[in-house]
């Protein structure tokens, strides 16, 4: 039993605004078709004039239509027949329109020592209205990332996400890798510019744990303009040489931060002086892998202390 009717579409996915040509063939089997049966096209709910109808040698009838501009990202094209006064739908085709993917921009990566993965994110660019897959592609290389030296499995971003994480087992932390993002949909493919980095050099640390020294040691004579602090490196980064920055300001008034730098990443006891006595201070600390490259950690949560 052949199909009663069948729509063929030149290209079911076109650029937004481009024309689409479709033809609908209705077989004689489609229940005693009168010779004058008129094929009618509908796009969504709107009738579409301009279908050219012809008889085929095998008795079937075929109508061809060209929609000059497809302006809906999604549209249902229906091939219908006027039958006993009612419009009968015999076949439907889903048309899609959109744009080829724009070149993803602002690709940046961070080595996350907690999840032990290389987290990369990018700007996907404007919506292409078509289902677009983003793939983080990379290869192992030497210094300048010109010649691939080993493959790394693709990292497929989840639907509608603009980030992907390459797990530790695919990474060589201290070797260079070329890395870029490919965007792909039915209308084309685009590639971001390529980064060349070694994962450990884009490590972003967590800040140390900053605290007041308890019991703050007895000073003779007492020093009301000092605070006794201590901080401890974030454990997963203990093996890394780092330098840190401490910033502080009185809590009230429109003071600005005073920054003490450079500081080591672990200090059992640190005396911060030159402060205003009996004043509430807010303090924060952050660290960075150093002298080897890395990114500054975020500032630690605010520590509030009162001078003597």
């Amino acid at each position: 039993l052949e199909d009663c009717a069948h729509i063929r579409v030149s290209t079911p996915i076109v650029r937004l605004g481009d024309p689409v040509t479709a033809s609908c063939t209705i077989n004689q089997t489609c229940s005693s078709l009168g010779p004058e049966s008129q094929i009618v096209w509908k796009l969504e709910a709107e009738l579409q004039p301009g279908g050219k109808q012809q008889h085929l040698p095998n008795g079937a009838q075929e109508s061809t239509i060209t929609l000059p501009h497809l302006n809906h990202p999604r549209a249902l094209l229906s091939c219908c027949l006027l039958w006993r006064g009612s419009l009968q739908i015999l076949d439907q085709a889903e048309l899609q329109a959109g744009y080829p993917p724009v070149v993803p921009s602002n690709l940046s990566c961070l080595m996350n020592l907690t999840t032990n993965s290389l987290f990369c994110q990018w700007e996907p660019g404007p919506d292409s209205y078509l289902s677009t897959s983003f793939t983080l592609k990379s290869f192992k290389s030497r210094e300048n990332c010109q010649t691939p030296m080993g493959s790394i499995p693709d990292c497929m971003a989840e639907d509608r996400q603009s980030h992907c994480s390459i797990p530790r087992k695919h990474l060589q932390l201290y070797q260079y890798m070329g890395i870029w993002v490919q965007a792909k949909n039915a209308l084309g493919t685009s590639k971001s510019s390529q980064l060349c980095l070694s994962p450990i050099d884009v490590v972003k640390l967590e800040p140390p744990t900053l605290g007041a020294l308890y019991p703050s040691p007895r000073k003779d004579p007492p020093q009301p303009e000092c605070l006794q602090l201590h901080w401890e490196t974030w454990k997963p980064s203990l093996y890394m040489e780092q330098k840190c920055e401490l910033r502080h300001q009185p809590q009230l008034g429109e003071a600005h931060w005073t920054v003490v730098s450079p500081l080591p990443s672990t200090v059992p006891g640190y005396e911060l002086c030159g402060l205003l006595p009996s004043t509430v201070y807010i303090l924060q600390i952050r660290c960075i892998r150093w002298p080897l490259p890395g990114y500054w950690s975020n500032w630690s949560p605010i520590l509030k202390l009162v001078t003597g």
Partner: protein
Amino acid sequence: TAPLALALDLPQNFLLKCLEQVRKIQADSTALQEKLCATHRLCHPEELVLLGHSLGIPQARLSRCSSQTLQLMGCLDQLHRGLFLYQGLLQALAGVSPELAPTVDLLHLDIADFATNIWQQMEDLGVDPAVKPTQGTMPTFTSAFQRRAGGVLVASNLQSFLEGAYRALHYLAEA
């Protein structure tokens, strides 16, 4: 014997359960129709009559269940055959689309439950046919559109079938 007398053989619990199952299947079927309309803009079975003819979608008869000519055992048998037919039609719709599949699966499960309930009651009354019905030829839906259009037509026919069943069961329950 007058249908009413025979209705007395039917436990009230069975009739109440059947009425509940009909309402449940009606709700499932309405959900399918609403989804077909919302997702694929196929909202009116009247637009698909011609296609339905060419697809050859069989319908179930309930002639022995109409209140004028109600013949209890014949009615139960027709109910069971109709439900069995709709299980086959829903299986033919397999692969309709990911959005609709859960609704079609639930509808199929509820219809199968109802058919089992009726079959077990016919067994208890000792009127179950010697052989369980076998599925006739089912339509073949060759495209995603045909499966969706088939879904609209099957759901619409099923609703009419269920209305007939509900009237008969309600008539028997009121007896």
